[in-house]
């Protein structure tokens, strides 16, 4: 009698243990699923900067560039100077002076690019025309699209 009773108790204990184990297993499994799906889920949501901008950068709206104005924008890791002539034409050049790496400026009165460090001068196409700079500035393309000014780089094959 007693052994039967103890058997039943043992079995029911085992059942409870088993159930408990199953619950823990289930809980662990769900926790694991969560730990896997959470990063994947976050990964799928596009980041604020939706695309790596390396080939083109938006410099701003056209209205931000009245004639005879300029702005320095970041193109990847390099500064690019975007400027607009009196007649409305847009240009974009590398903003790093080829002499000793200072940042250049646009002089709207003479429509030239000037480097304040040692008085280097470039024309609107980036050609070094006066002063110490040994090389011209790299040219970038400017495209106007949907009232925005887009600066792109020439493709290298």
């Amino acid at each position, binding site marked *: 009698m007693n052994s039967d009773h103890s058997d039943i108790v043992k079995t029911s204990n085992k059942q409870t243990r088993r159930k408990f184990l199953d619950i823990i297993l289930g809980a662990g499994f769900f926790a694991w699923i969560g*730990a896997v799906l959470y990063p994947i889920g976050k990964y799928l949501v596009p980041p604020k900067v939706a695309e790596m901008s390396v080939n083109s950068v938006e410099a701003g709206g056209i209205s931000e560039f009245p004639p005879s104005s300029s702005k320095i924008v970041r193109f990847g890791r390099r500064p690019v100077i975007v400027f607009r002539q009196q007649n409305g034409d847009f240009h974009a050049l590398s903003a790093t002076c080829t002499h000793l790496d*200072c*940042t250049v400026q646009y002089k709207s009165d003479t429509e030239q690019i000037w480097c*304040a*460090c040692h008085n280097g001068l470039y024309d609107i196409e980036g050609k070094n025309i006066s*002063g*110490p700079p040994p090389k011209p500035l790299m040219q970038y393309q400017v495209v106007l699209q949907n009232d925005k000014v887009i600066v792109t780089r020439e493709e290298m094959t």
Partner: protein
Amino acid sequence: MRNLQLLGVILFFMGFLLAEQQPIPKEDACIRCHKEMDEEQEEGQKLFPDILNDIHLKRGLSCADCHGGDPEAFDDEDKAMWDNESFSGEVSRTDEIAMCGSCHSDPRFMRQYSTAIRTDQVKQYWTSKHGMELKRGNKKVAICTDCHGVHGILSVEDPRSPVYDMNVPSTCSNCHSNSDYMAEFGIPTDQYYKYRKSVHGEALLDNNDVGAPACNDCHGNHGAIPPDVSHISDICGTCHVNNDQLFQESHLKPIFVKRGFGQCEACHGNHEVLKPNDDFLNWEHGSVCVQCHEDKGGEAKIMADHFYTLLDSLKGQIAIANSFVEKADQKGMEVSDLLFPLEEAHKVLIQTRTSIHSFNKDYVEEIAKPGFEATKTAIEGGKAALAEFDFRRKGLFISSLIITFLALALYLKIKDIDRKQSKDKS
């Protein structure tokens, strides 16, 4: 006579046999004889082969155009020289300026060779210190050939020319560093030594930056003279435009002019222009302001202290930003984005140092502001990168915990099933 003619014929043929590699510009009598004579000359006195590179010869002029004589008088020394009226032989030092100028100051003549070439060299020369001394009868000054060479004159553009950009300092120092030679003039002879140590000397002679000034860029070429003390800023301002402009507009300029102080030179030196140090503003140690402002607590000190603190704090922020970014980089985080504001901050630092020349507190602060903003961005970015790094470690820890927990539960389940199965079997 016949012997001489025979000799001439033999020499003529020998000339061909011993022909130089270089084409002889114009085979005239002068060159032919003097080439022979050259072989007996000592090394330093030889005319050939250098004279064949001479720009005058290459343009079709001959020895006779300077020295006179008859270049067609082959094998006849007397006809070529001694009996010829135009022959002048060696040109004396006092006559040289006029002789060179006889062509080089004639626009109509020079136009044939180069439409853009200058023809005011002689005029300029007479205004120079060299010219003025020469007028006074002192022959110990530089004349045309002392700098340009004499028989192998090369274009200024030719790197072998003694007046090519990079060769100018050593050409000038041939005399100006020779203390014995210069003794009677009472001027220092350490200019080259000082220049060599300066940023300009380094740039030109070590880094081959032809944008850097040589002696002539500040002193003038043919009109070489030390710059007028009240216009030093204009000279330096040829390149250092901003520094000059700011200084001209500052309250210091009129004072410097009135008192005859050397403007840029007063703080930066003239030949030994070294890389400026922020300590120039440090009143306690290294200040250049105290040369004039001997008072300890005046407005000058307040301004200098302010500038110094500003620069110091910007440098400090840059250093902090650098260390954060470097730390994040070492930990393997992607920090290429942060290099941009770091570079920006460094550029603003340079601009701030330039802005000091305005001696205007508000202006300098305005220039420095974007620098602080950039360092702030970089520091925040660096901190975020480090935080992300910690987040990843923490995330790993939590995930490992979950996995371990699950693995343990699974293990227990496996054991449980095994036990159940073996019990069922028995």
